[in-house]
């Protein structure tokens, strides 16, 4: 079946289109070249005046896995309240799998990636992601606190051995990328250390966080994994943590590095309140170094729940829990999880400044190919707040009006009021489509050129950008219309994106012994078979290019 999307204004940064009027043709789930005047489309959508973009891609959203279920359990109140509503799944911090897929699709998103899949919990995460309808998914594997890696490093293993280990783990757990969460810190917390400096030897294995960070960044480069090491940095949420953030940038010595939810890592300790914005310093460092990318982790005001593998940081925040309850878990010699409900209050100085720091980062980092729109769902806010966030980026008057409602001391502590930048539609398309696809190595997504998967979103161009991005007119997934005027009109299953880097299988015999001796699990059972992912249908493999990055 041939479908024609006629006469829309096409925003397709990867192919150099910035709003020019044109037609798109879809066939068998993909975008095809214009078949010429002789072709008779089976279906034509007249998109005159409408804005057309590829389906949006969220590179960092906690949508599945153990901590998400713990968060759902802890947030029983919000589910009880939701049960009073006619369709109770709107805007929840902890939506069900079904609501997750629906809400994303209704906002024009066709993929979202779980950024913290623990090796031991990977099978669970995949089982859960398969139950999210409509959108594509995938997971980033959390490494850097796993005792096996630390043992390997402590034994003086070279770069090849580390890369083989990482390569095996990515294959075995069907992951798309490598994430490091407070490298060494989660492990140290298991020995009751509540802080670990970048150059301090951790307990037991006596390895420094810097060594872990550089080893993982090096392994990612060696294996040729498209996505750079995805780093949840040091001292999350602690005033003054900008020094460690800037130090991480230097530590990787030119290797590619993605700093995730960098808003939480861009804090100074200056001023009367010993808490200040260091967004300008971070932005300056990012602007100067093309090997660095970031996503923001914007906070938005209201009740949410924070869920992170970073038990060291979460234990530090537990006293701020709202409501007053929280869960910490030490997990399976590979990481941990901390779940702390939290309410960001617009009248609280610290929260207002966090909000401003996030927006400063968005506006000061110049290259929309290297900064991504996230709220670190649900940690900064539920992903359903993206339309409002887009409005804040595109509409300075709205930004100033919102700022005026916040804590009165805020203007003295942020330069936000003086920043005049407004994102264009093309920049939004870059930041939410083209750039995420590129930085994850999804070559046939995030753009609208021939051969791309027909994941497409069509909007009415409204001056109120919140309204515009909240309710697209049409959303196509794999060429099928799934959403019309904000309503899901068809259900289908997404796919799971993975990489399968080559590695020397000799590492497996060492690992098999370690698994027998320590993990109480056979390595063969740890490995996830292809048929376990969506019943064997739906793995999408992305090429690794050793040495290419």
């Amino acid at each position: 079946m041939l479908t024609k999307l006629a006469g829309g204004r096409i925003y397709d940064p990867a192919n150099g289109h910035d709003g020019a009027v044109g037609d798109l043709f879809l066939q068998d789930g993909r975008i095809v070249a214009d078949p010429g005047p002789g072709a008779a489309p089976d279906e034509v959508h007249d998109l005159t005046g409408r804005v057309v973009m590829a389906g949006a891609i969220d590179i960092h959203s906690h949508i599945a896995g153990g901590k998400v279920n713990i968060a759902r359990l802890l947030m029983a109140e919000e589910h009880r309240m939701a049960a009073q509503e006619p369709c109770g799944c709107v805007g929840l911090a902890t939506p069900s799998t079904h609501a997750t897929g629906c809400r994303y699709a209704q906002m024009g998103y066709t993929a979202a990636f779980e950024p913290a899949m623990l090796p031991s919990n990977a099978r669970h995460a995949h089982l859960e992601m398969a139950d999210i309808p409509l959108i594509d998914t995938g997971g980033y594997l959390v490494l850097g606190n796993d005792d096996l890696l630390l043992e390997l490093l402590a034994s003086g293993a070279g770069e090849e051995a580390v890369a083989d280990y990482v390569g095996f783990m990515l294959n075995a757990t069907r992951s798309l990328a490598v994430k490091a969460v407070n490298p060494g810190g989660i492990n140290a917390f298991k020995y009751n250390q509540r802080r670990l400096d970048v150059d301090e030897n951790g307990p037991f294995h006596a390895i420094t966080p810097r060594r872990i960070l550089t080893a993982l960044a090096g392994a990612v480069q060696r294996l040729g994994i498209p996505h750079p090491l995805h780093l949840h940095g040091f001292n999350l949420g602690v005033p003054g943590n900008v020094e460690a953030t800037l130090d991480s940038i230097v530590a990787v010595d030119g290797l590619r590095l993605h700093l995730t939810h960098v808003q939480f890592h861009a804090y100074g300790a200056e001023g009367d309140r010993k808490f200040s914005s260091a967004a300008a310093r971070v932005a300056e460092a990012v602007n100067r170094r093309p090997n660095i990318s970031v996503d923001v982790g914007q906070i938005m005001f209201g009740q949410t729940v924070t869920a992170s593998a970073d038990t060291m940081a979460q234990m530090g925040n537990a006293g701020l829990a709202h409501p007053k309850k929280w869960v910490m878990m030490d997990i399976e010699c590979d990481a941990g999880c901390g779940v702390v409900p939290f309410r960001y209050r617009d009248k609280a100085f610290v929260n207002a400044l966090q909000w401003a720091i996030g927006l400063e980062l968005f506006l000061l980092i110049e290259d929309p190919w290297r900064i991504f729109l996230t709220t670190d769902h649900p940690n900064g806010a539920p992903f359903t707040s993206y339309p409002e966030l887009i409005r804040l980026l595109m509409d300075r008057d709205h930004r100033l009006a919102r700022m005026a409602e916040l804590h009165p001391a805020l203007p003295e502590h942020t330069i936000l009021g003086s920043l005049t930048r407004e994102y264009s539609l093309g920049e939004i398309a870059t930041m939410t489509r083209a750039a995420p696809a590129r930085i994850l190595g999804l070559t046939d997504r995030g753009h609208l050129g021939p051969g791309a998967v027909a994941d497409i979103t069509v909007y009415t161009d409204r001056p109120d950008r919140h309204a515009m991005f909240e309710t697209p007119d049409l959303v196509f997934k794999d060429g099928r219309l799934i959403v019309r005027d904000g309503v899901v009109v068809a259900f289908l299953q997404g796919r799971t994106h993975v990489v399968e880097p080559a590695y020397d299988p000799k590492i497996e015999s060492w690992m098999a012994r370690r698994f027998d001796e320590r993990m109480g699990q056979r390595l063969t059972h740890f490995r996830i078979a292809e048929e376990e992912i969506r019943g064997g249908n739906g793995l999408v493999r992305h090429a690794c290019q050793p040495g290419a990055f």
Partner: protein
Amino acid sequence: MASDRPTHPIGRPVVHHDVVCPFCGLGCDDLTVEEEPPSTLAVRSTDCPVARERFSHTPVAEPPRVAGVPVPLAEAVEAAAALLGAAQAPLVAGLGTDVDGARAALSLAERLGAVVDHALSDGLYRNLAVLQRTGWIATTLAELRNRCDLLLVAGPDPAALHPRLFERWVAPAPAFQTPPSREVVFLCGEPLDTTRAVLSGLPVTVLPGDPARTGDAAAALAAALADPSRAAGAAGIGAGDIAALAERLRTARYAVVAWGAAAFAGPHADLTVERLVGLVRDANRHTRCAGLPLAGHDNIVGVNQVCTWRFGVPLRTSLAGGTPRHDPHRFDWARYAAVADVVVWVSSFRPEVPAFPADTTVVALAPPGTAFADEPAVFIPVGTPGIDHPAHVFRSDTVVALRGRGLIDRGLPGVAAVLKAIAAALPQEAPAC
């Protein structure tokens, strides 16, 4: 999965190595199971009584029955769909099944507007109630094995329900602790003889006390942490013992407090859990300490995980009226069975189905050979996950999911296939977002 199965050499038993055991939630994946063709299984590698008993129970297939009369599967499915289509207050429970079976059961329940619960959720709910009320600090089995230097077992010995707990997760020396030593304390409960034997190489202290007052002992310990010299006795345990244990907890490097909530007696057993959770939290002011709540027979943890991700709320939930409503009291299956008119009972791990009130219509999915107090309206024999077909099950610590494989082919359908067929035979409705 046929490809997983070794072919049968004539007349000789087939040996399956590294078999995943799906029964008690400890995730043993090292079993050697011998198959005497056509379908008799015997566990050779462990004395675990649960594994031995369950793997050996593989009677040959029998046909489904409707009102006691053997019928082909398709007919039983039609009959079940007809009964369910007319149900006013359906209950989909038991839910002893793998992840796929749980998905199918929950989809069916959603379609019917039923209440869902697991047969064994009493123990789980003692834990979940506390998790939801206060949160907790918890750990997993490999952390216990590799980092714990002091294990405090609260209440009756959990090995009664999880037989290889001590053998696999406590007896080996902790690999990531210096020195690699461990001691075990039993509080308000006595170790079984098998547990004592497995722990013979480790220092073991037994403080018997009154199991019904385990919570009091936990509270006394928590109170003594700040200043052990001011400890008070509790639950029949003297002040001196409480003081010594509090001191030991303070100086442990990584203490684990383990309990099996299913064994706590009394209607307020969740208060016992709450006090244990409080003890763990208080101990973390001095050192590291984590709880290990054990519950996990018949994949209850996996089924609860699926329910939580599917609906945002755990089991004991009503799916009548659109948005899921969770109520651990009202939607406890044992209570709801009194008002339910049609019950779908799923028990694929064990040949046991409870008795229901006389006017209840029961559709039972259970292994062949299951004995019933009253013949159910529909009985569909099903295979056992991890024996008859590949299956995902969760470990008790909620983190690790394992995949068991199919060992034998008795020609029995899996729960997922049967429930999907029943759902497909119901009048169709468009799914809503």
